């Protein structure tokens, strides 16, 4: 049985107070808190197994390598990838998308090609393509978003053509929480021979994601948003695509052989096998160990249960927020069936930062600003927004307190 009150007992930080009030953490779309199991796994690694991986024959290195490889395996199974060869560890979603942009885009995109992204993307799924476009000269086409913040699928249909080489779309919007039908867009992209890259930063932590079923070519996500530590993230890629790609960065670990030829005066290099070909240098081993434990924790909870819990919280919170004050406005779609636990909102007469600071006074943490999605805010004609986002440890009681304070802000 999924019981957030029991789950909370695993999270030491939730016992602290902020401004003399019990902490209510509603900024989970930015980062999640960490259960004691993850904290202990990292501590245990440094206390008992710390060594560099894939470098030495000694016992500690063997243990560290096993843990590191097992973390890849755990993640691969979590998203139903074919194996560890399809799960590249990176720093986070941003680096995963940059890896695709530089290692694939730089070598495969030409002047007459097009990349299609949506206007609801996080900056991390826009800026890398802009950067590569300046080097390679291809065109970026932006798929529209409806006035309620929902994706305009017809716009994708209009934009995707034979010139399209890759389509980049977030699975869940980090501003509105809306779940995009990435399978539908992937099918369309594949009909034209284009690849499909999915930003899963807000979906993988909150719902079951099966890369085979959704038929995505790349999936990027972060460990820290799914109970894991900061500094570790994942790029899933179909192995046949990763295999053909050039490496992202050069160094140790990503090579099988570097041999100097006196004849040519150069080194011949053979790349390592997947996924190590894309993991140059000493990786974040303790981060991987923490991520492994986070994935195990989420598997035990069950991702369907996680999704249902967040749906319950969202459907409980939205009407209460709407009713608590005439000044409170919720932005974006409020159809709970196609939405994760993210609620963007504003209070008339106050900036989002005023709202966040007022809530902070009561120990309630929400995000304010553009949330790294300025184009979407411009489209929705918002100067900024406040955002409450839920996770496995949030409760209805916390939402009651949040709404109570929101009601009070409405009196300003």
């Amino acid at each position: 049985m999924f019981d957030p009150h029991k789950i909370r007992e695993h999270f030491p930080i939730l016992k602290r107070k902020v401004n003399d009030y019990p902490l209510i953490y509603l900024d989970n779309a930015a980062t999640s808190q960490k259960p004691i199991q993850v904290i202990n796994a990292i501590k245990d690694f440094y206390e008992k197994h710390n060594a560099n991986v894939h470098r030495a024959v000694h016992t500690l290195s063997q243990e560290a390598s096993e843990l590191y490889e097992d973390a890849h395996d755990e993640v691969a199974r979590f998203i139903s990838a074919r194996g560890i060869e399809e799960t590249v560890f990176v720093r986070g979603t941003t680096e995963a998308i940059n890896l695709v942009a530089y290692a694939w885009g730089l070598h495969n995109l030409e002047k007459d090609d097009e990349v299609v992204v949506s206007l609801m993307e996080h900056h991390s799924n826009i800026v890398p393509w802009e950067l590569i476009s300046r080097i390679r000269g291809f065109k970026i086409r932006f798929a529209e978003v409806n006035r309620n913040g929902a994706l305009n699928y017809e716009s994708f249909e209009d934009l995707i053509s034979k010139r399209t080489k890759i389509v980049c779309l977030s699975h869940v919007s980090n501003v509105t929480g809306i779940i995009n039908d990435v399978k539908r867009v992937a099918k369309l992209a594949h009909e034209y021979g284009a690849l499909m890259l999915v930003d899963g930063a807000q979906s993988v932590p909150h719902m079951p994601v099966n890369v085979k079923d959704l038929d995505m070519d790349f999936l990027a996500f972060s460990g820290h948003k799914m109970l894991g530590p900061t500094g570790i993230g994942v790029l899933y890629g179909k192995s046949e695509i990763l295999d053909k790609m050039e490496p992202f960065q050069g160094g140790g670990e990503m090579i099988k052989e570097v041999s100097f030829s006196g004849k040519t005066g150069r080194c011949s290099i053979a790349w390592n096998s997947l996924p190590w070909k894309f993991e140059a240098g000493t990786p974040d081993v303790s981060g991987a160990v923490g991520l492994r434990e986070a994935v195990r924790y989420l598997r035990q909870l069950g991702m369907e249960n996680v999704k249902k819990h967040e749906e319950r919280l969202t459907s409980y919170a939205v009407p209460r927020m709407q009713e608590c004050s005439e000044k409170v406005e919720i932005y974006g779609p409020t159809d709970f069936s196609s939405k994760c636990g993210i609620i963007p909102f504003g209070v008339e007469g106050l900036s989002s930062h005023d709202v966040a600071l007022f809530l902070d006074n009561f120990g309630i943490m929400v995000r304010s600003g553009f949330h790294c999605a300025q184009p979407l805010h411009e489209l929705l004609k918002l100067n900024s927004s406040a955002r409450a986002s839920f996770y496995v440890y949030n409760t209805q009681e916390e939402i009651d307190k949040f709404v109570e304070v929101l009601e009070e802000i409405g009196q300003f």
Partner: protein
Amino acid sequence: MAKVDDYISRTDGTCGKEKDVIVTFKYERRNEAVKKIRERAALKKSLAGIIFELEFKNHSFRLYSSGKVIFRGLESKDELNSILSALLL
């Protein structure tokens, strides 16, 4: 001689179209800073002893009892320093 920096922990530009500036006072001096500002600026409205909308030298801003201020529409860092000096020193 007292300096504005003696009171300030952080100054952050906000994310959003508004381009506000949030000043956070040092924990140990926040009560003193809040008291001084409330004494020197004119109160326009307040709520629950937590948020105070104040006016000072034609600048409207919001002060929080937790030790933070949001300034709007400032032209430069010098302008911010000038207001803070007048409010705190």
